[in-house]
């Protein structure tokens, strides 16, 4: 139903008015109204206003129909629950007859989408926020230990005094730990990235990383000259970031195609410095390619600006860190202090288990587009490769002691500690 005449007919019938009565009321013949209602005569202006007046309607509702955006939203609401039988073809009719209810349907559909996004964001946070996951795990572990010990103490089987004292002491320790863990858990929601008010929505960067994670950051269609595609299942901000990532990926892939870098990388054991020298390409480009190669050992990537803010992170087993509170001992920050000069360092993360990583980092300074009198934009890239503990030579130099972020780092005497650790060893 798109035409004005059909709308007039529908609304006249809704109002229980005969063609004769309406025609008479607006001073036209019933046969002329009949022609109008079947869209065989055009109708506009004053006559539409008169008819609308007699049908107690806004004239615009007759001439333009219901709000097209509203109808689109109602159809979207129906499509979202495709297993329900909905008279989709009558959406416009419904919107015209009951605009208030129709706006409610559209608003509820928007609300459902927003809630879905929040649930996804929370679920992503649990999966990807190491501080939150550590705090939650600690709370559950402490509760388990307390419950189990308390059940032994209060059970029907008598306990000798030594065992009683032991389980009392354990409960005391666990209760103390539980209190600290609970405070840490609350801090996770109150601190940066948390939010006492609305549920935090996952950042565009996290959305991008989630998409890239699905293929290990490898984008096969860009390897063969394909163009970046617009992602439809992420927010517009994330889609823009993803487009930028893909554009650079395509340029990197064109400069270092898979059949060139793949065999060379395997021959040179994925060493970015030797590869950059042999292939004559910039080190950051080689590092980005290595981190996105298929059939490669796990290689993490951290892209960070001079303010220490992560722009992109690819995590691999052994390399998952609190992204908003990076440890200042990562070689990336050494590289930021000397743009253009690569830094290679072994890093140890606290255990158990002790993790050794070999890190290559380099910073680049891009001139400010506003002119040389303005500061350059400096950013650093770090490629991270977990080492097999069995292959660490016994005479290897002492690694740099870095951490996953103060809140989840158990190093007791670190000079860089900014806040107490959530992780509490018994």
């Amino acid at each position: 139903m798109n035409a004005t005449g059909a709308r007039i007919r529908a609304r006249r019938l809704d109002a229980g008015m005969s063609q004769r009565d309406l025609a008479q009321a607006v001073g036209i013949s019933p046969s002329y109204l009949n022609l109008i209602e079947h869209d065989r005569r055009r109708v506009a202006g004053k006559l539409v206003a008169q008819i609308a007046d007699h049908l107690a309607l806004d004239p615009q509702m007759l001439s333009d129909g219901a709000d097209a955006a509203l109808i689109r939203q109602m159809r979207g609401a129906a499509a979202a629950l495709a297993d329900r039988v909905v008279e989709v073809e009558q959406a416009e009719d419904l919107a015209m007859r009951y605009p208030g209810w129709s706006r409610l349907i559209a608003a509820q559909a928007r609300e459902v989408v927003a809630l879905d996004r929040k649930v996804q964001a929370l679920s992503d946070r649990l999966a990807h926020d190491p501080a939150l996951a550590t705090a939650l795990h600690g709370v559950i572990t402490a509760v388990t230990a307390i419950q189990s010990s308390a059940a032994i103490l209060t059970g029907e089987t008598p306990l000798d005094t030594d065992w009683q004292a032991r389980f009392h002491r354990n409960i005391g320790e666990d209760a103390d730990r539980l209190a600290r863990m609970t405070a840490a858990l609350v801090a996770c929601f109150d601190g940066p990235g948390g939010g006492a008010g609305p549920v935090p929505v996952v950042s565009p960067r996290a959305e991008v990383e989630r998409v890239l994670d699905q293929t290990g950051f490898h984008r096969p269609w860009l390897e063969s000259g394909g163009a970046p595609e617009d992602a439809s299942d992420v927010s517009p901000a994330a889609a823009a970031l993803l487009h930028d990532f893909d554009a650079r990926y395509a340029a990197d892939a064109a400069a270092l195609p898979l059949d060139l870098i793949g065999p060379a990388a395997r021959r040179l054991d994925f060493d970015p410095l030797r590869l950059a020298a042999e292939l004559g390409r910039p080190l950051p480009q080689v590092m980005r390619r290595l981190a996105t190669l298929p059939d490669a050992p796990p290689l993490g990537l951290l892209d960070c600006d001079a303010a220490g803010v992560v722009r992109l992170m690819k995590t691999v087993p052994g390399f998952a860190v609190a992204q908003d509170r990076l440890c200042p001992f990562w070689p990336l920050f050494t590289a930021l202090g000397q743009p253009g000069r690569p830094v290679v360092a072994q890093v140890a993360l606290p255990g158990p288990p002790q993790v050794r990583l070999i890190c290559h980092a380099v910073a680049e300074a891009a001139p400010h587009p506003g002119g040389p009198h303005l500061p350059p934009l400096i950013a650093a890239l770090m490629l991270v490769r977990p080492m097999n503990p069995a292959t660490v030579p016994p005479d290897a130099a002492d690694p740099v002691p870095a951490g996953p972020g103060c809140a989840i780092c158990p190093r007791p005497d670190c000079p860089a500690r900014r806040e107490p650790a959530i992780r509490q060893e018994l």
Partner: protein
Amino acid sequence: MARRVLLIEDEPNIIEAISFILTRDGFTVHTHEVGETAMAKVRAQRPDMIILDVMLPGRSGFDILRDLRADPQTATLPVMMLTARGQARDRALAQDLGVDVFMTKPFSNAAICAEVRRLLAEAPRDA
């Protein structure tokens, strides 16, 4: 001879509580705290069943379960997994890997004892 349970778990107070309740029920309990050496411990101890935590230092319980099922000597060894992560996908992964019982923390002592008794009653001796 008492049936032997190997408890692979890294939380000292949970180790103490589970060891206590199972020992009181007549089982012999051995414990191990590190994921990466757990398989060596299993081969050395030859337990009748294993209680396996998911989050372990060095190696995850899922990896250990995968190794257990791949080794003909331990492929049918009863395994109860304990986890603080009760998400459906973890449960599904554990089931795919061949776990016998998947127990979410916090658990009740009675449930642990009942499941250990049930698994060992079903398992042949000298498994």
